[in-house]
């Protein structure tokens, strides 16, 4: 790195927080005429100034993000942001990283939006994240303790004042039924405070204590809500707590946590719960406490998907149907699209432009809306198709296992052929006319021309799109969700999955996001990794194959 570069980047770093200083320091020595000179050494051309300003902006934004991450204490984001920022400055101020100058923005977004997401899915796949294992152990312990406090039966609601000792320790001053004030802290049980003043039933002045006003209370609200003031020396009498700093109630804890031994004790039964491998507190008799936490479970989610009989049977069927659906969708839409493209490519046809515009209409409709409309039109008793087109025939389009599959393919054909029509039209128009002329001279018929010339040439340019169309349909969640929602259900399966579910809708059902099943993000993530591997492998192999087609041209 040259001396000039070092200075420049130092200037940028210095202007990161100030912003406006950069142009001043650099403008003076760079008159427009000096550009040829700057190219050889100092690098003070107009382009450089623009770069400097842009980088100053990037650095300013980055610094803002760093500060935000710092104040939120999100160290992961902070480190990633810092690394990206340093990388950006290095790449754009060194001469050795020319390709990276073009690649960096894309790479950064790739990292943030895709690699991170894929990585996180991978992590979740090896945990038991889901219902009952939703958060960290600390939060689970906290929740268990607070859920297992019971208000002492028949205990009064006492007007409460938050007070502070001279040492800064918080305490409660409560007014009991007899109108007498009692004061205590976490360490000292409630004691009568003889000379306290009570106004409107609330203690307003307690000698030896400072009464905190609302603002001061809110500043320390975490301490106030967690403060427990024992009623007496006997822990069985319970302790006073408050949730709004206005009224105190006497509570008794059923569960107690021993931080040193890491165990929970039920004070009413004496049962001791110890943390188990599954992320729950377990008693010796196998019973568990309700709230658990997230732990890694190794390959358990993957074995569930393949080995648990409740999932493995439907999984195999769904995998088969997913392949069939994706393949047939691509083949049918491509064939229809190509047929129409060839038909409308014939110069003898009048009004081709109008027809072509009409053909594209289904493509212009949002997919989920079209699927919903079709779901209505295919309703057995009231749908347009059965009522109007078929004269009241009660055909169970969406509720019979095979017909539902046919309906899905037909609706997907309707939705998908315009795309294929478009790309085929484009590809056909770029085919060289002389090849056809040669074929005609050689005496080839229409079928022969199509098979030996049109198809191969068309496939060269459309094959990559067909593969991406396959990948899209493999994960065509919207259509399945909106049209059949996976139904009809498998009659012989014990999990809520159906004949038209594809892998991605199975993932959605298993994850329990719609609230009809308990959430199991671990299993859902494991399944999405399986999908990723399947789609990734097929696409990679298929793209390798298409290279052979390119040799044609």
């Amino acid at each position, binding site marked *: 790195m040259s001396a000039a570069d070092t200075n420049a980047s130092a200037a940028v770093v210095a202007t990161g927080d100030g912003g406006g200083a950069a142009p001043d320091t650099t403008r003076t020595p760079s008159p427009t005429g000096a550009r040829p000179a700057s190219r050889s050494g100092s690098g003070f051309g107009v382009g450089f100034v623009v770069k400097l300003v842009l980088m100053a902006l990037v650095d300013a934004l980055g610094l803002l993000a760093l500060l935000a991450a710092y104040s939120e204490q999100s160290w992961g984001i902070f480190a990633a942001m810092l690394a990206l920022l340093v990388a950006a400055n290095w790449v754009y101020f060194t001469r050795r990283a020319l390709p990276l100058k073009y690649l960096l923005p894309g790479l950064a977004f790739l990292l943030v939006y895709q690699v991170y997401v894929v990585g996180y899915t991978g992590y979740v796949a090896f945990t038991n994240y889901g219902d009952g294992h939703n958060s960290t152990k600390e939060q689970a312990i906290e929740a268990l303790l607070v859920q297992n406090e019971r208000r002492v039966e028949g205990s009064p609601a006492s007007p409460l004042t938050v007070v502070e000792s001279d040492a800064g320790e918080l305490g409660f001053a409560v007014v009991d039924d007899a109108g007498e004030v009692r004061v205590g802290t976490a360490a000292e049980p409630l004691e009568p405070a003889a000379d306290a003043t009570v106004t409107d039933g609330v203690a307003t002045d307690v000698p030896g204590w400072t009464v905190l006003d609302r603002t001061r209370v809110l500043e320390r*609200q975490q301490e106030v809500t967690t403060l427990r003031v024992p009623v007496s020396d006997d822990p069985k009498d319970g302790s006073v707590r408050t949730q709004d700093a206005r009224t105190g109630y006497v509570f008794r804890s059923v569960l107690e946590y021993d931080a040193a031994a890491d165990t929970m004790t039920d004070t009413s039964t004496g049962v001791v719960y110890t943390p188990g491998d599954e992320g729950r507190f377990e008693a010796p008799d196998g019973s568990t406490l309700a709230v658990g936490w997230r732990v890694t479970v190794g390959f358990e989610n993957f074995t569930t998907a393949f080995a648990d009989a409740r999932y493995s049977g439907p999984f195999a069927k769904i995998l088969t149907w997913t392949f069939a659906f994706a393949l047939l969708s691509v083949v049918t839409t491509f064939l229809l699209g190509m047929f129409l493209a060839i038909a409308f490519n014939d110069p003898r046809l009048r009004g081709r432009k109008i027809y072509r515009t009409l053909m594209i209409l289904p493509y212009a409709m949002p997919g989920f809306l079209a699927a919903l409309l079709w779901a209505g039109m295919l309703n057995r008793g009231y749908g347009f198709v059965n009522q109007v087109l078929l004269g009241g025939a009660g055909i169970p389009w969406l509720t019979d296992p095979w017909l539902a599959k046919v309906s899905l393919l037909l609706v997907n054909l309707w939705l998908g052929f315009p795309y294929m029509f478009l790309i085929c039209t484009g590809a056909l128009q770029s085919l060289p006319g002389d090849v056809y002329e040669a074929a005609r001279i050689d005496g080839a018929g229409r079928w022969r021309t199509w098979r030996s010339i049109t198809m191969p040439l068309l496939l060269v340019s459309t094959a990559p799109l067909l593969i991406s169309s396959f990948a899209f349909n493999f994960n065509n969640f919207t259509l399945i969700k909106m049209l059949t929602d996976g139904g009809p259900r498998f009659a012989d399966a014990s999990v809520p999955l159906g004949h038209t579910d594809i892998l991605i809708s199975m993932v959605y059902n298993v994850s329990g996001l719609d609230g009809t099943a308990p959430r199991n993000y671990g299993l859902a993530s494991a399944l999405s990794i399986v999908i990723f591997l399947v789609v990734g492998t097929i696409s990679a192999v298929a793209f390798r194959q298409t290279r052979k087609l390119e040799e044609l041209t």
Partner: protein
Amino acid sequence: MRRSILLAAALTSTLALAACGGAETGDAGETAEPTEETGAPAASGSLTVWVDESREAAVTAAAEDFEAETGTTVELVQKNFEDIRTDFLAQVPTGEGPDITVGAHDWLGELTSNGVVAPIELGDTAGDFEEVAVAAFTQDGQVYGLPYAIENIALIRNTALADEAPATFDEMVAAGKDAGTKYPFLIQTSAKGDPYMYYPFQSSFGAPVFEQNDDGSYRPELALGGENGEAFAAWLAEQGDAGTLSTDITYDIAVEAFKKGKSPFIVGGPWMLEQFADLDLAIDPVPAAGDQPAQPFVGVQGFYVSAQSQNALLANDFLVNYLSTQEAQVALFEAGGRPPALTAAADAVSDDPVVAGFREVGAEAVPMPSIPEMGSVWAFWGVTEANIVSGQAKPAAAWQKMVADIEGALG
């Protein structure tokens, strides 16, 4: 090529992780409330509250009083009601969740077993609420939410087509046939079934979903199987065969048909009333099909406090002392149309015979179970009912398989 692979990967993983994104907090739907009341006590703290569209205005009104009196800033974030439960579960552990969220009582089991919700102490105000409302938000003796509205289904009758309330299901069907309309009665079903709507009929056969304790709370022992459950299944098959029940009837079809006067009866809730504004209605109890009373589910709406709230004190103060007033509860009623949970507020709005009618039916209803095990029931329950109604499944066998499957899912 790589793009498409990664795109596919991103598609799959974003779906699985949609809830982990945490991006929703800064959503476009976010509406910041006017901050800094001048002249108010020194500003201290701020509260974030998740509300859905229909409740936003009413909560805003209560929040304004709170802001003026305490100098706290209340920030309302508008969200889809359907998204709230999942997002709340995902975001509270990260510390990004709200302090308070609106919600339904049947989420309670899931929220507590995941440790995302904190108990609130209603103190003496508990007695001011309808008993069922507080009971619904109670688990193991602790209250977890401030109730504000009660909703339940009933039989909505078009008085122009039928002039008296039917006592039994058969009487209703007979009256419906006498009216000469296209449908004797309407109930939304769809191919996935609707066990919520069908529950009054099921309970009239004495097959509640879970066993109930003496205090009305449920314990995780399935009760919908056995002889009574199978009798209900047989009844479903019979009615499906006769055409009185049909899986072709979806919510839209049912509401549209009733609106056009094509049936004298529809089983439905207060949320449908807006569409029936032109009709002259009476609200009756759902008639029993079996030999026991038909008890619909009652759902209670309320506000939960996050277990990870940094402003628990403010949150409790706002709920217990500002949203439990008659004024606030009536405002919430006017915004959402559901009868208030606060007895005084419910009395104040009961002049309307329709509101009073739903309230009367609700008094006989049972709370929808809120135990976490309920989450494993819905997915099997509805589809089984639908398959029996449509004749695709043999009633007794399908019902037994459903019970076995639910037991399998419960583990």
